[in-house]
């Protein structure tokens, strides 16, 4: 199956039809929830923290639900308005303490300094490596994103970014962009021996060296792909 990143830019790929299909897929939800749980675990927040988390590429708010089950409030940003409209409905219907903002992470995040106790991102950051518009330079977009992510985090807080790098070079591009703005940390690989289930988590710390946790072994779950629909534009 082709990678979504090759089909069209995210705001077009996750159009209204794809967004609602995505939101309804139970299997997708299960895998997203598992990845979100793992990302939260890797955030390593102190016990009894009821903090504010940032969800980058929050989509329809699936990981937001997991954040909330763990006792935190969250603000999500996403470039797809169709996804966000579904997230907004879920937030309203579920009486959630989440909230969402329409934003392209490649243009920065636009939050005050030090306000988040942690950030997670599920399957989103690799999108920054693709130039879907001719004026988009991946390196610059990665720099802006990581600069503002670093700034928005409380000192010592972590960001855990689960992503699907297409090549080792892409992982290196993303990691070095993070380190260049001051993050420390590195990549945790879960299920490294399974071609399908292998998951990469970039675990970053804003302002304090961090001891990397170990990746998980075993079988795991594969990337939840759904068949890309026709482009809407």
């Amino acid at each position, binding site marked *: 199956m082709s990678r979504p990143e090759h089909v069209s830019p995210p705001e077009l790929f996750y159009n209204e039809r794809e967004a609602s299909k995505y939101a309804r897929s139970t299997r997708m939800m299960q895998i997203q929830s598992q990845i979100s749980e793992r990302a939260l675990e890797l955030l390593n927040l102190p016990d009894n923290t009821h903090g504010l988390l940032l969800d980058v590429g929050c989509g329809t708010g699936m990981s937001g639900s997991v954040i909330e089950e763990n006792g935190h409030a969250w603000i999500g940003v996403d470039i797809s308005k169709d996804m966000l409209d579904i997230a907004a409905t879920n937030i309203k219907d579920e009486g*959630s303490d989440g909230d969402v*903002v329409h934003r392209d992470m490649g243009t920065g995040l*636009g939050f005050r300094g030090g306000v988040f106790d942690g950030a997670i991102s599920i399957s989103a950051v690799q999108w920054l490596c693709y130039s879907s518009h001719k004026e988009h330079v991946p390196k610059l977009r990665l720099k802006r994103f990581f600069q*503002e992510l670093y700034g928005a985090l409380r000192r010592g807080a972590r960001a855990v970014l689960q992503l699907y790098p297409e090549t080792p070079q892409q992982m290196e591009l993303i990691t070095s962009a993070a380190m260049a703005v001051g993050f420390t940390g590195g990549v945790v690989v879960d299920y490294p021996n399974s071609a399908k289930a292998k998951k990469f988590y970039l675990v970053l710390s804003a302002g304090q060296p961090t001891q990397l946790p170990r990746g998980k072994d075993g079988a795991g779950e594969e990337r939840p792909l759904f068949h890309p629909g026709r482009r809407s534009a």
Partner: protein
Amino acid sequence: MKLLTHNMLKCNVKGVNNGYPLKIEVTTKEIRETEMNPAFLQGIVEKLEWPVFRAAAAQLGEEGLPEAVTPELLEQEDFLKKFHRALLEVVVVEGALICPESGRKFTITNGIPNMLLNEDEV
């Protein structure tokens, strides 16, 4: 958009030094109940720009928040309820956010602020 989010958002258009606080224009607002989490409220208070929050709350009809928060207040049920309501239950559904420096207007539709920037603003 909840006032929690408003308190954290700023304008980061290129060249803007002081894109905070964003002015709020309200066309429609709603109260949407959520469960109160006192531990969250006690923790978030130090991260809020309180005067900004208090002014925004008053603008949205949530009067009666104190000028400053004390540890004693954070133990009082009455105060926590007001705080919770203004921070997380009042939602600007339609309206706009306006940067105090550049005047850039960010519209809010379906409760979602549109903070997308044009390429020349990055």
